């Protein structure tokens, strides 16, 4: 009977969980060029990503992090910090949750949101770097903005649900599962729902 059979996670996740790389133990020892924070404790996950950038080459030279969360959240941030070292900032900017989960050899379905947080924290850190260095124009307006952090539902999906016929918050939840975990996004989602209904069906 192997030990790993008792784990729902891959060996790679286990390795990064047991020996997390690049944790920032003391913020005062690291002069970062960009810092991004995402997630919230209510949902059980929060991440902070710190990056250093070689400004001439546009390459990420160092990446440190802190995470409050489960094994897959810890492993996701740990492996992310390894992947992006030496990576072109532009390329790092477009890392997807799938890339991170892929590097870990996959995550259980109910843990995918952990890797979603990782790439968002990195993007927030790069945005911060851009802003600090007079490159605010590079801050991409997120093609779609995530409204419900827990279920990873974007404003585009809300708009889509409205176009498909959702008119009440309950109908929106039925279609998108939005706001079914911590419920913090309810107010914002209701506002967007009203706006999209007005915009499209006035």
């Amino acid at each position, binding site marked *: 009977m192997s030990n790993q059979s*008792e784990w729902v996670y891959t060996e790679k996740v286990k390795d990064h969980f047991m020996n997390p790389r690049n944790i920032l133990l003391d913020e005062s020892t690291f002069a970062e060029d960009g810092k991004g924070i995402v997630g919230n404790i209510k949902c059980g996950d*929060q991440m902070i990503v710190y990056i250093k950038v070689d400004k001439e080459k546009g390459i990420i030279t160092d990446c440190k992090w802190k995470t409050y969360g489960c094994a897959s959240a810890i492993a996701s941030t740990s492996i992310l910090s390894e992947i992006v070292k030496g990576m072109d900032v532009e390329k790092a900017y477009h890392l997807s949750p799938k890339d991170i989960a892929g590097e870990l050899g996959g995550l259980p379905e109910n843990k995918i949101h952990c890797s979603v947080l990782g790439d968002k924290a990195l993007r927030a850190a790069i945005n911060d770097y851009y802003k600090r260095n007079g490159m605010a124009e590079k801050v991409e307006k997120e093609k779609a903005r995530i409204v419900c952090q827990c279920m990873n539902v974007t404003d585009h999906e809300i708009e889509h649900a409205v176009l498909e016929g959702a008119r009440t918050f309950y109908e929106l939840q039925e279609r998108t599962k939005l706001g079914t975990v911590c419920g913090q996004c309810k107010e914002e989602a209701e506002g967007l729902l009203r706006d999209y209904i007005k915009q499209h069906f006035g």
Partner: protein
Amino acid sequence: MAEKRVYLDHNATTPLHPEVKRAISEGLENFGNPSSLHSFGREARARVEHARETVAGFIGAEPEELIFVGSGSEANNTVLSILSCPSKNCCYTPGGGTDIITTKIEHPCILETSKCLGDRGIKISYLDVDEYGKISLDQLKETITEKTRLVSVMTANNEVGTIQDIREIAQIVHEQGALFHTDAVQAVGKIPVNVKDLDADFLTISAHKIYGPKGIGALYVKKGAPFCPMIRGGHQEMGRRAGTENTLGIIGLGKAIEMREKEMEGEHTRLAGIREALKKGITENIPDAHFNGHPTDCLVSTLNVSFEGAEGEAILLYLDLEGIAVSTGSACASGSLDPSHVLLATGLGAELAHGSIRISMGRETSMEDAEYVIDKLPKVIQKIREMSTVYKRRVS
């Protein structure tokens, strides 16, 4: 591999008692159907009825008041389903109440069945609990009406170990003329439970929480109490639960109870000492730890503790790497995204609910095990806090 393996998840399930193993092995030779009239059947029947007498005697019931069922969950479902039976010939009391009162900290098999009954039009009220997990007798008195048919309150909570004032609760319920059920799965075999003394109409027992096999439980139904079978189509269990008896399971439950009768009292004192040592060790070695559950009315085998800035699934898995098995109220470990409904009901904040672990001890737990935990746990918490976005204080 870890230095040693320490099992501290007895509220989830327990290892078989050696005597239970022996009894089941012996029972394997006897394959007869207890319903058969020939000698093979009669031998099986004798074993089943012997077990029934043992279990009934242990809780102060008559043998015919005890029904063997497939699990504690089945027993709980059965009791609630009595309320939803629309047959006038069954147990339905014309003009009587149909409302149900239960608590916010019941096992999901009560909560989800209640919700389903609610969807079918039965009024369900959920009593609150205080910070220690106790319901308020005053709130019960305010909630109960002449329309109340059944009140179901668990004897001891599986997550925090809090023991309710069952006798007082039953008294209030009966004064109003309603029926009283208690899910005593975590209590029978750990603390004295006597149905006459508590005055319960229904009481749920499970074997695998007390060193018996999985897949067998028992439901006490007071003589004269209304009853409606959930599984129909057989005369077994006096027509109250169809299906050929799980003879090996029943033999195992009977032996498990017999052994509890012998070992319970001594174990209680021993575990109380180990629990105190654990509590002291955690308090002295880990800052910002919060103990959950009632300070005195609590199972001595259960210790539920939350750590600021540390997430429960991470704690559980780091402890697992050290060979220590506990459980957690964190959302991440449960497969859902919500932390423990019991801890939230006690008013604990989301961070502490996510950061909780449950240490549940048993007959094989030793002081050495507690020392091993006290050696490993502080390092695990420190490691998690060092990488935590939330925990800022006192990290050395």
